[in-house]
């Protein structure tokens, strides 16, 4: 589904954010991307939905070579990719409902369907009561959940979530991860960048670790991380 080979990304003349990343994420996989602040996680994700172009190397997404993609085709690529942006990127002048609906409108959903699906997804993230609010009138966590709802509402083939639980308490975060898991089970390829090692450990998925623009580990064994981050934690299955 997503294949990168030796991706290099420069910001400015002498700063390299990605220093030769090669990886392969198969259709239907669920992958975490972790690493310290500034490691290049967001940059890596931006490559996938073409917000940034690689300076070197090739990316194939859903069979398309992104470096050869015409600008006009980018929107059609993005329609298959739901993105939860790290800074949410909600449209401030639209209500929560209209934000969600916009993502549906973009793909040409019929009017009747739009309403039903928007309601549905907002109920899933626990925000049905905020449907007519504007993003700036929501708490940080609520905004984040709207961003998540918008990303998943049109059943994308790929779901990218950049730090989707940074503003959520553990209980809601678990619910959200449950939602992602469910979408994953329905066949969506999911890529989640996060710092929340608790979640990473509990989910027991493939983990790609970036450090300073390089891929330092790529493993399916969550046990490998038990001793990092200067904190020892005993994990039990979620009760909620």
């Amino acid at each position, binding site marked *: 589904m997503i294949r990168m080979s030796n991706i290099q990304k420069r910001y400015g003349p002498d700063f390299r954010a990605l220093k030769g990343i090669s990886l392969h994420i198969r259709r239907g996989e669920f992958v975490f991307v972790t690493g310290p602040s500034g490691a290049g996680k967001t940059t890596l994700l931006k490559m996938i939905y073409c917000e940034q172009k690689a300076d070197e190397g090739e990316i194939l997404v859903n069979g398309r070579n992104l470096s050869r993609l015409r600008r006009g085709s*980018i*929107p059609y690529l993005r*329609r298959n990719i739901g993105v939860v942006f790290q800074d949410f990127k909600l*449209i*401030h002048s639209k209500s929560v409902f209209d934000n969600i609906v916009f*993502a549906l409108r973009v793909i040409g959903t019929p009017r009747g369907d739009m309403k039903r699906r928007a309601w549905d997804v907002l109920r899933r993230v626990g925000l049905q009561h905020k449907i007519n609010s504007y993003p700036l009138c929501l708490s940080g966590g609520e905004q984040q959940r709207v961003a998540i709802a918008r990303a998943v509402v049109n059943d994308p083939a790929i779901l990218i979530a950049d730090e989707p639980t940074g503003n959520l308490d553990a209980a809601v975060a678990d619910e959200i991860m449950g939602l992602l898991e469910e979408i994953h089970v329905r066949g969506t390829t999911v890529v989640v960048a996060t710092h929340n090692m608790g979640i990473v450990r509990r989910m027991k998925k493939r983990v790609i670790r970036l450090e300073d623009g390089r891929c330092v580990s790529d493993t399916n064994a969550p046990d490998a991380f038990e001793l990092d981050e200067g904190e020892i934690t005993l994990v039990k299955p979620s009760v909620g």
Partner: protein
Amino acid sequence: MLVQNLSYFIEEGFRSLRHNRFMSVVAIVTIGFALMIFGAFLIVYSNVQQITDGWIREVEVTAYLREGISDDAADEIKKRLWENREIASVVYVSREQALQRFTSEHADAAYLLEGLTENPLPASFEIGLSREARNREAVERLVAKLGKLPELEGVQYGEEWTKSLLTFLKILRMLGFILGGLLGVAIIFIIANTVRLTVYARRDELAVMRLIGATNWFIKGPFLTEGLLQGLAGALLSVGLLLGMYHFWLPKLQASAGIFFLQNVPLSFLSVEMLLWIMAAGMLMGFFGSLMSVGRFLRV
């Protein structure tokens, strides 16, 4: 699908106007004032045109015949004159008629002619101008053409003041053209730029929409309708302002005789056609202002 999108564009354009109220009002007022200037200019221009056209209509060209040309020969010339498109009427005034006219017009000075032995007045053609020729250029062209006829001794149009006036009107007209042209260009820029600034204020949203997978035209749609609506609203505002001033302020201004004693000069308003043109112009400029601007923020 197309219908759904179109109705979304229109709905969304209106919604956005309402949502960004401060910005909309500021933009619409700017556009309104810009178009008002243009409208006011057109009113002034067309009124000056009208007043001076009235005068021009009174301009009559008199062509004096050389001495010794018989009435028959004169008839021949008259026919030739008649062929000019600029000429609507030609009246032959013989020497005798000229003398008669002089004595009747200057009855109180009749004694001036009492002692005359010979008629000093030449024969002439009084030439009326056709509707199309009632302007400065056509008159001058005709006069120049007539001046070349050997049978004519001299061509005179109106009195001395007419010449000065015609020159002046030419200058005035040229200045009006220049000013109008500059105004037009400036107003296109002002309106387009105003719309651009309103788009600029929402550049973030444009980028977000593109990141969500909206095509450029889908993003542009509502902005275009919004630009169009802003232009239309601005045009309506300008027409409202002009009408208001024309009906309420101008009469008061004319009545305050101390400054301008012009109570009796009727100034006409813009024609309905002109008003429609202003609306159309406002809408077009808003539309294209948006069009030029939105693309700039869709480079993500």
